[in-house]
Each structure stands twice: as structure tokens, then as C-alpha cells.
């Protein structure tokens, strides 16, 4: 199993350009998440999804959109990139909690380093 994969690994954009980050997981997880990680700020949740076709806002959703058309994929879009969106973006997935799974163990991808000039 590949786990959680992210494409691309690196990207440089100019202000105002758009792009889509792709996250894929092969663990049949229901939940998927997009975070950004900035120095001194830790991991901050952008958007998340609790199942195919659903999305919800996290802590810092402004300037981003997401889609979960297939269970295994979660896309993060930047419609008009700004320098403040320079960051490392991580995708994560987790299983639905049940009787045997008591915690929200999230599995992270390797990250996408985005620079907006």
C-alpha cells in the first residue's frame, strides 16, 4: 500500500495564478483532511471531508476550495494564489471510529511545498 500520496511535491506560483493539489489514499479511509504548516503556527486545518461528496471548513479555509468526488481523492484548490499562501500543505486520512478504533489516528502524506511569489 502506498498510504497517502500528494502531488505535486513542489510548486512555485505567481500571485493570482491558480492550482490544484491532489491527495490520494489507498486505505479506504472515510475521513480526509488538508492542513497547512507554517513556522511557529503548527498544523492548521484548512478543510476536511467525512465522506465522499462531503466537505467542511476547518480553521483557515479562506482562499481555498476542496472537492471529494471520489472516496480515495481529496483535491485542494487555490483560485487566486497570494504570497500568504506560501506554506507546506499536508493531506491526511483516517478511518471512521468504531468499537475497536477509539482514536482519530491520522495518516499523513509527504507534503507539498508551495511558494507564491
Amino acid at each position: 500500500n502506498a498510504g497517502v500520496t500528494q502531488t505535486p511535491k513542489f510548486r512555485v506560483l505567481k500571485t493570482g495564478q491558480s492550482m490544484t493539489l491532489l491527495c490520494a489514499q489507498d486505505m479506504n479511509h472515510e475521513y480526509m483532511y488538508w492542513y497547512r504548516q507554517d513556522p511557529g503556527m503548527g498544523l492548521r486545518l484548512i478543510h476536511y471531508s467525512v465522506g465522499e461528496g462531503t466537505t467542511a471548513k476547518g480553521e483557515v479555509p479562506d482562499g481555498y476550495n476542496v472537492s471529494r468526488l471520489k472516496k480515495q481523492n481529496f483535491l485542494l484548490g487555490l483560485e487566486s494564489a497570494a504570497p500568504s499562501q506560501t506554506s507546506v500543505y499536508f493531506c491526511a486520512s483516517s478511518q471512521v471510529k468504531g468499537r475497536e478504533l477509539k482514536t482519530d489516528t491520522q495518516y499523513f502524506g509527504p507534503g507539498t511545498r508551495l511558494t507564491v511569489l
Partner: protein
Amino acid sequence: QKEVEQDPGPLSVPEGAIVSLNCTYSNSAFQYFMWYRQYSRKGPELLMYTYSSGNKEDGRFTAQVDKSSKYISLFIRDSQPSDSATYLCAIERTDKLIFGTGTRLQVFP
């Protein structure tokens, strides 16, 4: 007030030292507490989790929760250079995790 607070470090210790990493949290209703480890330029990975109060041990690692003080700790015994990483505490809140900012640990030979 942030829901989870963590000293960013960096923390630099010699090989073999006992390391103590700590977080405080604000909401006494939290019950699940986790520690993630993140190597440089990698994604975080779950190291340990604990439920409610008490200790949990896994090899050289011990996670401790003190709900009365709203304090969580990770102890690393006999630290190794391979333990050099950023350690993030996390607390579960309604199907989401709230992360601390992470403490960068450097173990030198």
C-alpha cells in the same frame, strides 16, 4: 487562549539523555491525547496516544496525561540521534485534531 500550547524549543540534548516534552491544553473535556513525530521534510506520523489520565509506555517512550493540571508529556529515555525530529502533541475534538506548534528536538552524539 490557544486550545493547545507547546514550547517550540529547540531542545538540544546529548545522546542517552532523558527528554521531557510538554503541552498544556485549555478544555478539560478533552479525552484523547496524541503525540506525533515529524522528521525534517516529512509528514507527521503517530507515535503514541493516551486516553484520559495516566501513563502509557512503548519502549523508550512514555506518554503521560495529567487531567487535573491539563498537562500532557512525552518522555524519551536513552535518547538517540535518530530521535531528532519535531514532536507535535495533538488533542482530539469532534473528529478533528488540534495540534500544538511542535517542539524541535536535536539529540547530538
